[in-house]
């Protein structure tokens, strides 16, 4: 007599056939298995053992969420979402996913920077020409997309590093002073970069980014202001703050968005389609 395989027993336990097939074949297979189990003591015993083993692995009971959990999720999520109609218009624009106002302001900033660069280059060229009388040469200027790309890269790197720091903070153990001290050092390094990025996005019509950088600034400042490193209480407080504001999640979302812009910018620079 051919005995049932362990796989056949497993699928009998779950009420499915071992062979992935449709309708009649499935129930026919189940019937054959049942018939065999009735007539074969060895397989019946193996089936019973399997059933017992699987019954031992009780479903994991997740910890209860409070009644307003869904609203808490929504509160954390909402600032990262753009209404659909607005989002479409933004993507139909310059293609960098910025709002219209943001594009105009960034455009003005880049325009002013470019004008300054042109003026500086022109002035330097004139001076140099007067002194040495060289042959006239054209001043090559970086095209605007290159500059946009640089800003996006800097922001993307900063958010990437901040995300890593927040992940470390999230998993930091209070009984590891070395790790806590390293966190303070990293926070100090990131604080300066964060303030520069914060200044850059001022008036860029990206409230989610500005808000997240503000929160990040507060958290980094607190982390950095502990010269001897973070003690257990300070660590717990920072972790609470981070969790209550869903800061890690927000930074993750922003980093992912900026990273997409970065890729889009790179494609654009390489002459590819976005």
């Amino acid at each position, binding site marked *: 007599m051919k005995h049932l395989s*362990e*796989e056949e027993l*497993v*699928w009998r336990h*779950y009420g*499915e056939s*071992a062979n*992935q097939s449709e309708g009649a074949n499935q129930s026919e297979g189940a019937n054959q298995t049942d018939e065999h189990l009735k007539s074969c003591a060895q397989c019946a015993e193996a089936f019973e053992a*399997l059933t*017992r*083993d*699987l019954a*031992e*692995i009780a*479903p*994991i009971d*997740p*910890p209860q*969420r409070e009644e307003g*959990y*869904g*609203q808490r*999720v*929504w509160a*954390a*999520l*909402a600032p*990262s*979402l*753009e*209404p*659909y*109609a*607005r989002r479409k218009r933004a993507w139909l624009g310059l293609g960098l996913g910025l709002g219209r106002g943001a594009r105009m302001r960034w455009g003005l900033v880049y325009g002013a920077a470019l004008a300054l660069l042109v003026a500086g280059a022109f002035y330097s060229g004139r001076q140099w020409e007067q002194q040495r009388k060289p042959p006239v040469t054209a001043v090559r200027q970086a095209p605007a997309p290159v500059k946009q790309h640089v800003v996006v890269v800097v922001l993307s790197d900063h958010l990437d590093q901040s995300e890593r720091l927040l992940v470390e903070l*999230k998993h930091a153990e209070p009984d590891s002073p070395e790790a806590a001290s390293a966190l303070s050092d990293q926070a100090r390094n990131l604080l300066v970069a964060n303030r520069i990025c914060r200044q850059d996005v001022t008036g860029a019509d990206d409230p989610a980014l500005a808000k997240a950088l503000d929160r990040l600034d507060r958290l980094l400042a607190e982390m950095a202001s502990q010269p001897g490193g973070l003690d257990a209480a300070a660590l717990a407080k920072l972790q609470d703050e981070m*969790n209550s504001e*869903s800061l*890690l*999640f927000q930074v*993750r*979302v922003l980093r992912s968005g900026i990273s997409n812009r970065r890729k889009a910018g790179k494609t654009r620079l390489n002459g590819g389609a976005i």
Partner: protein
Amino acid sequence: MFRMGKSDHAAIRAILAGDKEAYGALVARHSQSLFRVAFRIIGNEADAEDVVQEAFLRGYRGLEGFESRSNFGTWIYRIAVRCALDRLGSRRRNENDRVGEETEPERSQVQVADSAPGPGRLLLSGEIGAMRESAMQSLTPTERTAFVLRHMEERTTEEIGVALGIQPNAAKQAVFRAVEKLRRRLAPLRVNR
């Protein structure tokens, strides 16, 4: 503002017409079930909450691709499963400290014949729980996810296949491998049973 009375489809129509707030109703309605499956797959409260948020974010961004004939609850559930699987995969890649969990089954035989409650028994039940968790940790992310979906969430192999983006037979194999591994790892618990 939440509009709890709205059906999922009506909420989706409103969102696609530019009413972002309508998504709040969907989030409120489906957060608990997403947290449950995420926690069962991930086994960690904070990460499970992250998965829920990420799933809703991905869901929002992909809402234009949602087919109106489908069920939003099922659709977002699948997204959450994929997010949890991704999270589990990246966590495993980053983990360096799980060597200690590789307990040799021969060395960890646990006697469970005594049914009298007491400190010893409580300690033992904690130990059994730890062994179960260790056994679950020995599964690959796909095996663990497939097993959780089949054994705890009572999903069919077809549903598991769709959620994991694999063929139903591959889903079946993943569940079977998980059961095999778990039985092997938990064999010491059967002593004196």
